[in-house]
């Protein structure tokens, strides 16, 4: 029963994923969310403290936003990934050592994946298939 809609949804999801740096955006957004979760300082105190306190919230929020924008506006993924990596690194200083390092790591990894992503690439050839093709080529060469 669940096979029906899933059978249609999964290829659609694959196609959607193929057109954007999916893992990059997802990791960056998750990193921002993780840092926000470790903060949870009451807003009263943050506003009382001013800019310094606000930066603790601002940077992970920008990370989250960049991650989501990478997913939904992949045309600009280079710009978002550069902002994302800078903000991720900045969160070390402002937000609990970048969410105790976890969020920082996710954010930097996600930004790098988004930066390294290129649309419209050749399909990946699996190693097994490559080996098989190499063997076939050798076999074709050997008798000749």
């Amino acid at each position, binding site marked *: 029963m669940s096979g029906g809609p899933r059978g249609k949804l999964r290829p659609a999801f694959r196609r959607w994923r*193929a057109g954007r*740096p999916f*893992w*990059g955006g997802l990791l960056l957004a998750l990193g921002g969310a993780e840092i926000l979760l470790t*903060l949870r300082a009451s807003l009263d105190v943050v506003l009382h403290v001013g800019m310094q306190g606000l930066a603790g919230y601002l940077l992970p929020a920008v990370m989250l936003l960049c991650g989501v924008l990478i997913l939904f506006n992949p045309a600009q993924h280079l710009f978002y990934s550069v902002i994302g990596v800078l903000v991720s690194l900045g969160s070390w*200083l402002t937000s609990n050592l970048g969410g105790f390092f976890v969020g*920082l790591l996710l954010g*930097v990894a996600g930004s790098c*994946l988004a930066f390294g992503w290129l649309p419209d690439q*050749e399909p990946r050839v699996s190693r097994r298939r490559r080996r098989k093709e190499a063997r076939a080529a050798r076999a074709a060469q050997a008798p000749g």
Partner: protein
Amino acid sequence: MTSSAEHGEHTSDRPGGTPEAGDAPARRGRVRARRAAVMAVPAAAVAAGLAILTAEGALGVQFAISGMPFTVTATELNGTGFAQFGALDEMAEGSPNAGDTGGQVLVVTSVIKNATLTKLCQSVDLGGTNLVIRAGEGAQKVTASDLTTDSTQLSGDAAFNNIEIGNDASTLDKAGPKGRGPKGVFSQQSDTVHIASLRQTNYATTAGVFKLPGLKLGFSESGC
């Protein structure tokens, strides 16, 4: 002629003609390792640089944690500009840590304008495992400015200089503008504070700019 060439390019997926152009989606976005490395290498270098600078105490970092109780210990705390008053911390609505407290925790807010801590250890219980941050175990000490902690428990051997006890919390002036509480609340303040073998259970540390020489961050079965 050109149109036919374009047409040919569009129809055939690969110029060489693959043996199986079947199931896999023909062309899709992909991460090129070398492009990713262009950003990954400098980013890793900067991250390492930040960690090293922090561990040397050259760079201050900020903490803003609340909702999860965490323990702070230090063998010695010296501070100037100390204020302390009672307060009620409210958790975010529907916080899983609220339990039967109604989301409110009665806390003692301590504000220290400039603090120096020896052998700082901070641990957060993440359920089963503890995230432990240690710093200031070498010759250099941890320094913090505008350190504001909301604690439920505080123990240690304390000594104060020029202490004033029983002020209204809104009239405090020794710890700067951040060390001022709500009206009508009991409070105390002093010029200097010295606490030996400090142990705090905190609900929030906010906007304390910490300099953490000798930083060690890791997971451990036991907290501080």
